[in-house]
């Protein structure tokens, strides 16, 4: 008979790019624009702090909520950056990346049958997370034409009585889109009107290029209904450390901490030690990386548009989502072709729920970006329109 899998687990769709992973495996000389993480290694001072903590024998469990010094540093950081006040004692929880934060927040608020709004294209895990909690994801379509953004009016349209929450992610993976303060105010109004809870995944906030980033809970009446999620992966190039944090009103953080306690216990202590150093002395490295990303963004967007792959200018993160409609190809077909013929790896838009586009990550050296553009140009001239 073997093991029988639960209906819930069966019901989550397998990742749309599974095939793709297998194709890439074992291929040599790939120029990859498919990587969703910084190409920098974690700044040395952060690595050094973690090594030192190991030398000092800091190898134990920590408080479930996270090391006190780290929660204090997070609290201070948010006041300094956004004037946003969270009590380090009962309004902040250190999580295993933002991924755990999203999962915990959903588990803490979703009952069977509740609906959760997710602007799409979206990061791959939100939908399945909702399903695993017994909820129903409702995807709000965004497109190239509206800059991949939703408005308050869209929320009006998609909401019904069962809608409980909305997951925001700005700057966005995979679109790179972000919102100005006014655009967010419009969303906040609709959120209040429909009495929604907001999960705001702002892990790319430090990589906002054209205007200052607005943290969602700083908007009028939003602090009380928002779970603010952030992490160290993108800004400090710490993806492998798996560390992030969730901030919110006492009751939700309390519930999330309960679940976290029974599942994760705590975040690995060395990651927490590295994170303290990141918040204390990491700003210079963040600014240096940001400048570098911004230049690459300008370069890649101009180059893609010149290739005829029209592309809106992403306001943040390190992704571009050019349209490939002019080629007449489906996005999976395009990505597979580009990989096998020119050894350039990109992710088809369908992985994020949108056909007709590909996700390009410019978290790659300029040299790689240039090489990729040359190869793509060759690919496009072979396949019709150019």
């Amino acid at each position, binding site marked *: 008979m073997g093991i029988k899998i639960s209906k819930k687990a069966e019901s989550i769709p397998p990742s749309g*790019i599974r095939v793709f992973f297998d194709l890439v495996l074992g291929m040599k000389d790939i120029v990859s624009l498919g990587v*969703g*993480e910084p190409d920098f290694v974690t700044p040395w001072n952060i690595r050094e702090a973690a090594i030192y903590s190991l030398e000092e024998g800091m190898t134990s469990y920590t408080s479930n909520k996270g090391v006190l010094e780290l929660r204090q540093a997070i609290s201070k950081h948010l006041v300094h950056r956004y004037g946003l006040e969270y009590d380090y004692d009962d309004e902040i929880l250190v999580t295993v990346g933002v991924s755990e934060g999203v999962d915990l927040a959903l588990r803490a608020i979703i009952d069977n049958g509740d609906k959760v709004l997710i602007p799409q294209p979206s990061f791959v895990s939100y939908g399945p997370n909702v399903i695993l909690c017994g909820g129903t994801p409702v995807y709000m379509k965004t497109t190239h034409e509206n800059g991949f953004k939703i408005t308050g009016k869209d929320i009006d349209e998609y909401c019904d009585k069962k809608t409980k929450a909305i997951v925001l992610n700005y700057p966005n993976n995979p679109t790179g889109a972000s919102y100005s303060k006014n655009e967010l105010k419009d969303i906040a109004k609709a959120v209040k009107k429909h009495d929604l809870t907001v999960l705001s995944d702002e892990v790319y906030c430090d990589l906002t290029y054209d205007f200052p980033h607005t943290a969602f809970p700083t908007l009028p009446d939003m602090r009380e209904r928002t779970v603010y999620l952030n992490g160290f992966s993108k800004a400090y190039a710490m993806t492998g450390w798996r560390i992030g944090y969730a901030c919110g009103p006492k009751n939700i953080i309390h519930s999330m901490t309960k679940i976290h306690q029974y599942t994760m216990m705590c975040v690995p202590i060395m990651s927490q030690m590295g994170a303290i150093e990141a918040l204390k002395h990491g700003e210079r490295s963040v600014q240096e990386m940001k400048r570098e990303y911004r230049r690459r963004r*300008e370069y890649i967007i101009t180059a893609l548009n010149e290739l005829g792959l029209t592309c809106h200018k992403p306001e943040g993160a390190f992704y571009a989502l050019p349209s490939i409609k002019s080629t007449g190809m489906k996005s999976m077909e395009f990505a597979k072709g580009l990989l096998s013929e020119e050894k350039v790896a990109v992710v088809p838009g369908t992985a994020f729920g949108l056909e007709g586009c590909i996700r390009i990550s410019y978290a790659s050296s300029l040299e790689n970006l240039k090489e990729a553009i040359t190869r793509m140009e060759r690919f496009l001239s072979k396949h019709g329109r150019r």
Partner: protein
Amino acid sequence: MDEILEILEKDARTTPEEIAKMLSMTPGSVRAAIKRYEKEGVILKYKTIINKELLRDEHADVRALIEVRVTPKKNVGFDYIAERIYQFPEVSSCYLMSGTYDLLVVVEGKSLHTVSNFVSEKLSSMENVRGTVTHFILQKYKEDTDILRKAKKDKRQAISL
């Protein structure tokens, strides 16, 4: 510092067209700016950084840092004596320092012998030089922000979400 200079300092082979794309400028205006910097001497020259540690050349040059204490010359101070020193082709760098000595001079030569000869015959014997201390470099690890070993390969997976 102007971003054009920052980009070129990192990679002198970046073309004006590429810089233009990165900074939302026209290639023409980038070219003009570079011309101007070259003319003003802000851009001195374009060189290649060679990691000689990897060449494992037994006859590679030896290098020494030499602390030089001098008596400044009336009216012209340290500049006069510094210039007398840095004109020698053996001298690869020369700095005026704060602290217990005055000039830090980096000298390159074919062997320990050539370097010591240079120090004793040319430097120490110079008028106004009161004394020298020579430190030979045994191994270079990092120079001008470059770590002197082969760059590590990107360890990330080719695709990740």
